[in-house]
């Protein structure tokens, strides 16, 4: 689905050891599997079921999502920046699709 677009807000630079705040949002309907369409048939569940953020390959933050997470799942978390590196984000859809994004944080 072309309409699914991840967005990440992370600082471009940080000082070593600084705690920074990362905000992520992905446009996704998070269909809960509880709703019914006009004919009374259940709309099948389709949600993002896993989100992970890694820094230079090391896990920073991960989340297992259930249908009770709102549409367009938003996460805000914090991390300590030890060095210059790449913060990689990954969202896993119920249908097997994986959406990714990357941000480089430079330690000045």
């Amino acid at each position, binding site marked *: 689905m072309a309409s699914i677009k991840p967005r990440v807000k992370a600082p471009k630079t940080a000082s070593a050891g600084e705690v920074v705040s990362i905000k992520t949002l992905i446009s996704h309907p998070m269909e809960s599997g509880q*709703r019914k369409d006009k004919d009374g048939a259940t709309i099948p569940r389709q949600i993002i079921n896993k989100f992970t953020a890694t820094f230079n390959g090391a896990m920073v933050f991960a*989340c297992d999502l*259930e249908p*009770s*997470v709102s549409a367009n799942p*938003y996460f805000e978390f914090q991390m300590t920046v030890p060095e210059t590196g790449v913060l990689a984000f990954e969202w896993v859809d119920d249908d097997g699709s994986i959406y990714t994004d990357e941000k480089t944080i430079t330690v000045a």
Partner: protein
Amino acid sequence: MKTLTRREALAAGAAAAAFAASGLPAFATADAAQEAVMAFTGGVAPGEGGVTLTTPEIAENGGTVPVEVAAEGAAAILVLAAGNPSPGVATFHFGPLGVAMASTRIRLARTQDVIAVAKMSDGSFRQASNTVKVTIGGCGG
């Protein structure tokens, strides 16, 4: 209009009560939430304190309720909504670089308790819960 006798009124009331009980959608009960807590802790009853759960007192739209949890020294935090069709909401895991806090937006079907259970890095469990009043439910009802 025919006035109801006491007997008829009672019968009608009982029938209405029975209908209400059977006609409600299958919402998770507090028991289901308790089971989910136990599944997360491995049967250990979590202690109080050490977990900060920030929720609005009243949520006008149950479709997006901002929730923030923080627990210093936690390795993982489980968030539950006791009154949703299924109690599980999200489980946060924190790596060594991560700070044990997270904020997200969740759906709440009705006024209910939101529960956060933190798994501390020493293996103990801490719990916090807040009641959120919901004006419009968030599960397509």
